C-alpha cells in the first residue's frame, strides 16, 4: 500500500523502494515496541548491563581480579570499602561482579550467534527444500537434537572438548540451535508456497536468489525474536555448566563466581554476599532478555502470538 506513494518519484529503483519501505516498517515497529512497557523495562535494564560490561575494564583494573594481588581480608562481610564483601582470596565481590558481566554477556551473545547461524541455515535449507531428501535428513537431525537431553549432551561434549571459554560457547551453540531450526523451517515452508515465490521461480530465479530475496527476509522477524530469547537461555546454560565445573576456570563469569562460592562452602558458612549478587545479576539479565524477546515477538509476529 505504502509503495504506491513512493513509486511516484521517477528516479527510484526497486532496491531504493524496498529500503524506504523497510525504514518505514522499522519506524512503525519501534513505535509499537515503545508502547510495550515490559519490553521497555527490559531494554533499559539490558542497556545498563551492557554499559557495565563495556566499561568494566575501565572501572575494575585487572589487578583487582588477580587472586595473589588481592588486598582485602578474605571472606569479610559487606563494608564501606567492599560494598559486597570479599571472596576467599580477599578480592572485592563487586569487582568480580562487574567484570563477570563482560564474560557472561559475551558467552550469551556468542553462543546465540552460533546457535542462530546453525539453526537458520538448517531451518531455511530444510524448509525451502521441504519434502525432499535434504529436508528429511536435516529434519531428522533437528528432531534428534530436540529429543536428546541437552544438559547431558552438553556435559559429554564439554568433558571431551575441555574447559575453555570458546569451548563453552561451542557446546552451548551446538546444543541449543534445534528449536530455532524448527521454527525457521515452519516459516520457510509457508513462504515457499506463496504466489510471489512461484512467480519468481517461473521467471527463472534460482534457489540462491529465492532464498536470499524472498525466504530470508520473511524468516528474519521470527528469527530475531527467537535470538533475543536464546541469549537468555545461553546465559542460564553457561551458569549451569559453570556450577558443574565445566566452565573456563580463568574467566570469571557470574556462573563461575557462584561455583567458587559453592565450592568454598558458602552454603554452610553463610557467605551470602558472595553467592547472592551473581545470581541476582543473572536473573535480572535473563528476565530482561525474555521480556524484550516476548515484546519483539508481539511486534514482529502478531499472528504468532501463542505464548
Amino acid at each position, binding site marked *: 500500500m505504502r509503495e504506491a506513494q513512493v513509486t511516484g518519484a521517477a528516479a527510484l529503483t526497486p532496491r531504493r523502494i524496498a529500503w524506504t519501505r523497510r525504514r518505514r516498517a522499522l519506524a512503525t515497529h519501534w513505535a509499537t515496541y515503545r508502547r510495550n512497557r515490559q519490553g521497555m523495562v527490559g531494554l533499559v535494564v539490558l542497556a545498563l548491563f551492557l554499559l557495565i560490561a563495556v566499561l568494566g575494564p575501565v572501572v575494575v583494573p585487572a589487578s583487582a581480579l588477580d587472586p595473589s594481588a588481592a588486598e582485602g581480608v578474605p571472606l569479610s562481610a559487606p563494608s564501606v570499602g567492599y560494598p559486597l564483601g570479599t571472596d576467599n582470596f580477599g578480592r572485592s565481590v563487586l569487582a568480580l561482579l562487574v567484570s563477570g558481566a563482560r564474560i557472561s554477556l559475551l558467552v550469551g551473545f556468542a553462543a546465540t550467534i552460533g546457535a542462530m547461524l546453525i539453526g537458520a541455515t538448517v531451518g531455511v535449507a530444510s524448509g525451502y527444500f521441504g519434502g525432499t531428501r535434504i529436508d528429511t535428513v536435516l529434519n531428522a537431525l533437528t528432531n534428534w537434537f530436540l529429543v536428546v*537431553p*541437552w544438559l547431558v*549432551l552438553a556435559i559429554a561434549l564439554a568433558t571431551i572438548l*575441555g574447559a575453555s571459554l570458546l569451548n563453552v560457547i561451542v557446546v552451548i551453540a551446538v546444543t541449543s540451535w534445534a528449536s530455532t531450526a524448527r521454527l525457521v523451517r515452519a516459516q520457510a515452508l509457508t513462504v515457499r508456497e506463496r504466489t510471489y515465490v512461484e512467480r519468481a521461480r517461473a521467471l527463472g530465479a534460482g534457489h540462491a536468489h529465492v532464498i536470499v530475496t524472498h525466504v530470508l527476509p520473511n524468516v528474519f522477524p521470527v528469527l530475531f525474536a527467537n535470538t533475543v530469547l536464546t541469549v537468555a537461555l545461553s546465559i542460564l546454560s553457561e*551458569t549451569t555448566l559453570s556450577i*558443574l565445573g565445566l566452565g573456563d576456570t580463568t574467566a570469571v563469569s557470574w556462573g563461575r563466581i557462584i561455583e567458587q562460592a559453592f565450592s568454598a562452602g558458602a*552454603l554452610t558458612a553463610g557467605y551470602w554476599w558472595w553467592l547472592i549478587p551473581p*545470581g541476582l545479576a543473572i536473573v535480572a539479565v535473563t528476565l530482561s532478555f*525474555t521480556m524484550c524477546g516476548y515484546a519483539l515477538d508481539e511486534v514482529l509476529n502478531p499472528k504468532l502470538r501463542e505464548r
Partner: protein
Amino acid sequence: MGARRYVVRKALHAVATLFFVLTFNFFLFRVMPGDPIALLARSERLSPDDIARQQAEFGLDRPLLDQYIFSVRQTLTGSLGLSLTTAKPVTQTIASRLWPTVLLVGVGTVLSVVVGVFVGTKGGWRRGSAFDTSTLYGSLVLYSMPEGWLGMLLLIVFAGTLGWFPAGGFESGGLVGFDRAIDIANHLVLPCLTLALGYVGSYSIVMRSSLLEVMNEDFVQTARAKGVPDRLVLRRHAGPNAFLPTFTLIFLSFGFVLGGAIIVETVFSYPGIGLLTYEAINSRDYPVIQGVFLVSSAAVIVFNLFADLAYGYLDPRVRDA
C-alpha cells in the same frame, strides 16, 4: 483405522533415534583426546587385567567398523564398560544410583504439573485478574533463575538459617520402616521443591495460553449458550481440551527435568544419577559419562514415544495426520 500404522511408525522412529544415540556415543568416545587404551592405562584403579578385559570388551584392536558393530552389540546386551575410578561395571553403577533420581524426578514432575495446571487454569480463566498477572510475572522470574542457584538459596534459608530440613543426602541412615520413610521424605523436600519451582512456570504458561485458545472455540460458546454453569464449562468443556498440549509437554520436558536433576542433586549432594554425573565430570570418568548419556537419552526417547502414543489415543486427529 490408521491406529496400527501410527503406532508402528512412531515406534520405528524411536528405534531409529535410539540407534543414532548409540552411533553418536560411539564416535564421541573415539574423538576423545588420547585413544581409549591410553586413557584406561592412565587410570590407577584399573589393573592390567581390567584393562585387557576392557580392551577385549570394546574390541579396541580391530578395525573401526568392527569396533562399532561390537560396541553396539555390547551396549544392547547391557554392557557399558568399566568405571575408571571404581573399576566397577558402569551399568551396575548407574543402576545403584537410579532410584533416588526416579523418586526426585517423579515427585518433582507431579508437583510442578499439578501446581502449574492449577495456576495456569485459574489465571487463564480470569485473564487479567490480579492472580493472573502476579502468577504470570512469578512464572517469568522462576523461569529466569538458574536452578542451581535457586537450590542454594533454599538450602541457605530452610536448611541453614531455619534448620527445618536436612542440608543434603538421601537419608540419615540407621532408621527402619516408617521412620525411614519419613526421613527419606524429609531429605526429598528441598531438592524436590527446587526442581518443581524450576518447571512450574512453563507448565502454567502453556496451560494458560492453551486455555485462552480453547475459550474461543465454538464448543465452548455452545456450552455457554445452552446455559451450562461457568464452573462446568471449565471442568467439562474447556479444561480437558486445554490440557492436551500440557500433557505432551510433561513428557517432552522430561529431558529438561533430567538436566535439572543433575544440578539439583549436585547442590544437595543427593546420591542419584545427577550426583554420579557430577562426580564423573570431576574425575573425568568418561565411561560413566557416556553411560549416563546413553541411559538418559534412552529414557527420554521412550518417554517421547509414550507421549506420542498417548496423544494419538487422546486426540484421534493426529493419528491421521
